[in-house]
């Protein structure tokens, strides 16, 4: 589904990604771990098409299509979803209104009619129940005054609404207490299917107890330096990142 080949990217003249290769197939969950500053968030931003970053080499393909020339919204229309580490606030725009706009813009791009209001309401009801979200939440301004947990849960709610092919969860666990983490992770698990794929970006192994990955990759200094199964995550938890760092600083 997703094929990243020799991806290089820079921001403000600074190289961040230095040759990433990654293949993600439908039905798989990949975890990308690594110390701070290794390029994890850059990778997710680049896949989503954030123009703040410049791709200098390599390619990203989704279902065989090169994404290079596609705008962020076009990538979204093709089924890429990014759960933000820091979701932004949009005052005065309700969660419902935001979702309505997002869904209808995607439909418009696909040449479909707007979703009828009753269908939209049904979908909202269904997905908010799935994620145990209070309905009052839907009329609040997007992320304004939300707690950390509410923001992340709202991201996963949006994921449920948009039903993406590829979801990237960028540090979804940061700022969550254990209960909130469990709710968010349960939500993600309910959305897993053999048709979609999920990339979980995280600093800690904790989240992976709940969202169990098929593969774990370690990102360090802009490269994937180690790949393995979920056992790799435990190893990292135990040993920390230092052994990775020392192993690879020699190469530098």
């Amino acid at each position, binding site marked *: 589904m997703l094929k990243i080949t020799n991806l290089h990217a820079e921001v403000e003249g600074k190289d961040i990604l230095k040759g990433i290769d990654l293949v993600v197939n439908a039905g798989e969950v990949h975890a990308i771990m690594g110390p701070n500053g290794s390029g994890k968030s850059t990778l997710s931003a680049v896949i989503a098409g954030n*123009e703040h970053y410049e791709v200098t080499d390599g390619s990203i393909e989704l279902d065989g299509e090169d994404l290079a020339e596609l705008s962020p919204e076009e990538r979204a229309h093709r089924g890429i979803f990014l759960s933000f580490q820091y*979701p932004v606030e949009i005052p005065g725009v309700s969660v419902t209104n935001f979702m309505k706009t997002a869904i209808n813009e*995607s439909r418009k791009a696909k040449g479909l009619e707007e979703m009828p209001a009753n269908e939209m309401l049904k979908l909202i009801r269904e997905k908010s129940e799935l994620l145990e979200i209070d309905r009052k939440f839907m009329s609040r301004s997007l992320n304004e005054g939300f707690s950390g947990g509410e923001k992340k849960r709202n991201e996963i709610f949006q994921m449920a609404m948009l039903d993406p092919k590829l979801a990237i969860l960028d540090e979804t666990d940061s700022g969550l207490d254990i209960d909130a983490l469990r709710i968010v992770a349960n939500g993600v698990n309910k959305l897993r299917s053999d048709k979609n794929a999920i990339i979980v970006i995280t600093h800690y192994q904790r989240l992976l107890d709940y969202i169990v990955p098929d593969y774990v990759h370690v990102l360090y200094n802009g490269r994937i330096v180690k790949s393995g199964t979920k056992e790799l995550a435990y190893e990292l938890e135990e040993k920390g990142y230092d052994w990775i760092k020392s192993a690879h600083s020699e190469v530098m």
Partner: protein
Amino acid sequence: MKIELETKEYEYGFYTDIESETFPVGLNEDIVRAISRKKEEPEWMTEWRIEAFRAWQQMEEPEWANVQYEKPDFQAISYYSAPKKKQLNSLDEVDPELLETFKKLGISIEEQKKLSGVAMDIVVDSVSVATTFKQTLAEKGIIFCPISEAIKEHPDLVRKYLGTVVPQRDNFYAALNSAVFSDGSFCYIPKGVRCPMELSTYFRINQAGTGQFERTLVIADEGSYVSYLEGCTAPSRDENQLHAAVVELVALDNAEIKYSTVQNWYPGDKNGQGGVYNFVTKRGLCETNAKISWTQVETGSAITWKYPSCVLKGDNSVGEFYSIAVTNNHQQADTGTKMIHLGKNTKSTIISKGISAGKSNNSYRGLVQIGARAENARNFSQCDSLLMGNNCGAHTFPYIESKNPTAKIEHEATTSKIGEDQVFYCNQRGIPTEKAIALIVNGFSKDVLNKLPMEFAVEAQKLLEISLEGSVG
């Protein structure tokens, strides 16, 4: 100036052929008299205009507003021309860009024709609609007609109230308007009557031919209520460069007036060429327990100079001002309100939302004045500015004068910028940038949009989108 006037007078003065459809350029007493005669006004009205004209001659054009423009040459303007615009035979002859805008606003074909000055072939419809309106209103004793008609048909009411809220010599533009006003609307709601409809559609039809110096007078008698919608949401490409309107509202004891405006006059092109200069004086007077709400959405005009105000004369009276002002390209707006608290327990609320884009400048200017007698007066003001890009400006000039120690005045102000991160967030959810901006702007303006009557709010939202189109590069 004096010499110029005399020359003009000589040139065009007394013997001017007042039967012609357009008066010669320039302004003097004879022109004022001629306007009055042309409109078949009674003697008192003529004298009232002359008084205003003499006051105007002594006045100077104000310069304190935060706007820059070349002052109009008041002697180069024709003060009376037949309000008929060029008649077109079909919509095919109308500027396609204008039609495109109509379409975006969802304005019906019939209305499009009216607004763009196309001769109406299905006049029957609008006439019958207008008649139905008039019948419903007449049953309640409500008077709603052009002010020129009211001067003739209801002289006692007009004479009693005209100029009581905005006196002839109130300010430069108000004095000019008082001398030469072309037409406008008059509305009277009798005691205890609740006006059964928003006075809107009718007004829109009514307004199509009104000129550049509009005069509006709304009187809500004791215990009555009226909601009044002014303006047309379509961008009338008026050739008039200068607009100087006056609106007076009188809310007698226990009465309530809601006055909503959507203003979308020609703002000039992208380079700041052309566009309407809009110098408006709007003020309302509240007697005991009365309430006046001003709601405005200002997206048009090259220069806007406008401060809808409330004089809270009666005890327990309430004044409200809700405003959205959008400036783009080279537009300049200096707008806000004055809340003058004279009575006891008077309350006022000010919510102002300024949105600046392009190279525009947007200023909020407001005065909250608490008189010595105004025990327990309350004011709450909130002024928020939203900036788009790096070349525009937002300014806030709040003035507070309190002569009573029991007054409670609160002022909050914020300035924010549409962030790249907000736009990217929307993009990532599949929302293109233009739509994202519209969404963010609508969210920002929600508190004010909510105050507009339903159908007006929808049009106003679309208008915001259109005004800001292409403002993000």
